[in-house]
């Protein structure tokens, strides 16, 4: 391993772990503030950073920082009869897999460092090669940001995949590691010496084992289509053809449901049902040990969203944006083509991947704030009698259709290619439409009817509305000498 590749690896780890940890913290904020927005409340907005007289509130984001401080300064309680070793080990076992998961998640195009910026010799429209770091007579050196070819990497250049570890087993590693999350929850519940915790741990174990099956089986159809278990290959297939959500729509919904169950969130939050089990398997935890469970849960949302993005939403791929630039083509008819510098393609790809991940996390928050919790038997029934058969049916249907397509001949393949490009166009239209709709909705000012009923409202209307101002305390009551 050379110094350069070490540096790249360190950078990739920094980006990935930094993103997951920060998105976990941001999600704790969003869960409260976004939930408030859905329920017509203001939400937490009062943790201030006081600089002199100035109070910095940044929309309540500092509550997350205050949480961190609180976790570290709270009493680290341990039940007297708890298993000391396992009780301390459990948060680590719950936290570790989530971080380890990110190792195989590719978050961008393969980078060719040499192709990012180059110096060429130019004389008008003529180019010449450099000889011994100097240009031939009549040619002057010029810096260019070249594009790279759409497929493959030029010989002699090093490729840096934006993925911490390029494993051949790809997604199997993710299932292996994600399954370890159960161990942390189960050990936490058992070692706490508390019946609520034990109940939570049992529920967590059985729920996660049940939904792990669906989680794995929904993806078998995707493997059949993509022909690989490597996540980067899946994204490349989706870039060349169609996003996974169009190829495997049923699998997407099944995977979404199973992923929410895996992250133990509402409506599948049976293991920590606060109305039944106090806090479930982490009832007895406090301080940063509790914080680790808490953050692991939110980071798990981020990693499961990443998986969904990679397998069903095209990863870092945006419609029509390929490695060499923007190409709008339907089948063989090319409508528009422009080459883009490699560095821009990479940056847009990375931003697209993280943007999509945040979008899925955001959608998950809506589910969390809209649906009530399942009953335990309903949960198991849903898992084993609905999701599992549906995922099996999905496998068979995919197999049959895939076999039919394989034997249908070149005409069908061409038609499918056009259909795939149409889905890309559809995606691009939907994204553009949503952005436009959001802008129009944001700019439009609401018209409301005033309802001035009662003297209180009349006084407020006379004052020009209930205005925010400095705190007006009644103050000390003035006395007069008798």
């Amino acid at each position, binding site marked *: 391993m050379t110094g350069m590749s070490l540096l790249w690896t360190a950078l990739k780890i920094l980006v990935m772990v930094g993103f997951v940890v920060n998105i976990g913290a941001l999600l704790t904020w969003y869960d409260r503030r976004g939930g408030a927005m859905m329920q017509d409340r203001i939400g937490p907005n009062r943790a201030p950073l006081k600089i002199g007289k100035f109070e910095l509130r940044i929309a309540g984001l500092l509550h997350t920082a205050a949480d961190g401080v609180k976790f570290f300064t709270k009493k680290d309680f341990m039940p007297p009869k708890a298993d000391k070793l396992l009780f301390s080990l459990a948060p680590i076992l719950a936290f570790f897999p989530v971080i380890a998961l990110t190792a195989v998640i590719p978050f961008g195009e393969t980078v060719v460092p040499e192709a990012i910026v180059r110096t060429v010799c130019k004389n008008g429209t003529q180019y010449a090669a450099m000889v011994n770091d100097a240009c031939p007579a009549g040619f002057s050196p010029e810096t260019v940001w070249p594009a790279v070819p759409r497929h493959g990497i030029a010989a002699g250049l090093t490729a840096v995949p934006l993925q911490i570890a390029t494993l051949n087993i790809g997604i199997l590693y993710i299932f292996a590691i994600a399954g370890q999350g159960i161990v942390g929850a189960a050990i936490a519940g058992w070692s706490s010496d508390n019946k609520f915790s034990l109940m939570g741990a049992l529920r967590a174990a059985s729920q996660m084992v049940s939904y792990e099956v669906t989680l794995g089986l929904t993806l078998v159809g995707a493997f059949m289509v993509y022909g690989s278990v490597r996540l980067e290959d899946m994204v490349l297939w989706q870039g060349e053809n169609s996003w996974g959500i169009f190829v495997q729509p049923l699998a997407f919904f099944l995977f979404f449901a199973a992923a929410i169950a895996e992250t133990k969130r509402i409506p599948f939050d049976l293991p920590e049902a606060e109305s039944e089990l106090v806090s479930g398997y982490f009832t007895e935890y406090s301080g940063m040990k509790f914080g680790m469970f808490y953050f692991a849960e939110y980071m798990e949302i981020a990693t499961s969203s990443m998986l969904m993005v990679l397998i069903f939403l095209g990863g870092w791929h945006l419609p029509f944006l390929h490695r060499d630039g923007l190409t709008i083509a339907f089948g063989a008819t090319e409508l528009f083509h422009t080459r883009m510098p490699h560095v821009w393609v990479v940056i847009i790809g990375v931003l697209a991947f993280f943007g999509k991940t945040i979008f899925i996390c955001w959608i998950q928050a809506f589910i969390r704030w809209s649906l009530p919790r399942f009953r335990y038997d309903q949960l198991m029934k849903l898992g084993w009698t609905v999701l599992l058969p549906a995922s099996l049916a999905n496998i068979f249907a995919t197999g049959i259709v895939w076999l039919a397509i394989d034997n249908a001949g070149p005409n069908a393949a061409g038609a499918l290619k056009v259909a795939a490009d149409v889905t890309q166009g559809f995606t691009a239209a939907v994204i553009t439409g949503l952005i436009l709709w959001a802008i129009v909705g944001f700019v439009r000012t609401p018209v409301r009817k005033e*309802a001035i009923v009662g003297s209180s409202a009349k006084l*407020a209307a006379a004052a020009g509305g*209930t205005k925010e101002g400095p705190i007006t305390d009644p103050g000390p009551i003035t006395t007069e000498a008798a």
Partner: protein
Amino acid sequence: MPRAFPKKPPAPLNATPVQYVEKTPTVQSYLPEIMKGIGASMRHFFKNTRDMVRGTRPDPVTERWAEGVTTISYPEQKRPYPERFRGLHRLTLRDDASPRCVACLCCSTACPAQCIYIEAGEYPEGSERRGYERYPVKFVIDELRCIFCGFCVEACPCDAIRMDTGIHAVPYDSRDQFIYTKDLLKGMAGRDGTKETANPRHEPGDATHPGLTRDHVHH
């Protein structure tokens, strides 16, 4: 078709049978209802986020029935109290800044919480008011005991005690601080800022004084 429960025996009770929702595939798949629910959440989310970011959220008092975030950020924002809100008491003053109170003890008698203590005193010999009225040597209200019923204000024949300060009972450190004495009560102004009242007051000796004159006493 709705299924009635129980099926048999036919209930002789005067009760409506429980109506079950028909379990169609649409209902059983949950999905349409889930989508509706998420749609409702999204509608509120987008509206409220826009209003919070742009500062166009409905006024919590004058537009209180509008859809949106109508939370009052107390204490930065305050809902104005209604005009007839009963706040802390005040003793209204005459033109010479002495209290209008004539120490008739009507208020302390009417008070169901018995939180008013008045010690009446005679005006000194030679005073215009001596023989007509008395004055409160001590006038004490225990605001912690007060139930803010307003009976004292109703009972007062002289418009001497009012609850129109617009100040709600504030928290203090100790119970002693809730004992409002005469000076404190005299010092508090009404919501219009004055310490007097608009009702006219007729001093003994004035032509408008409705009571008996000193001369009449001997008749």
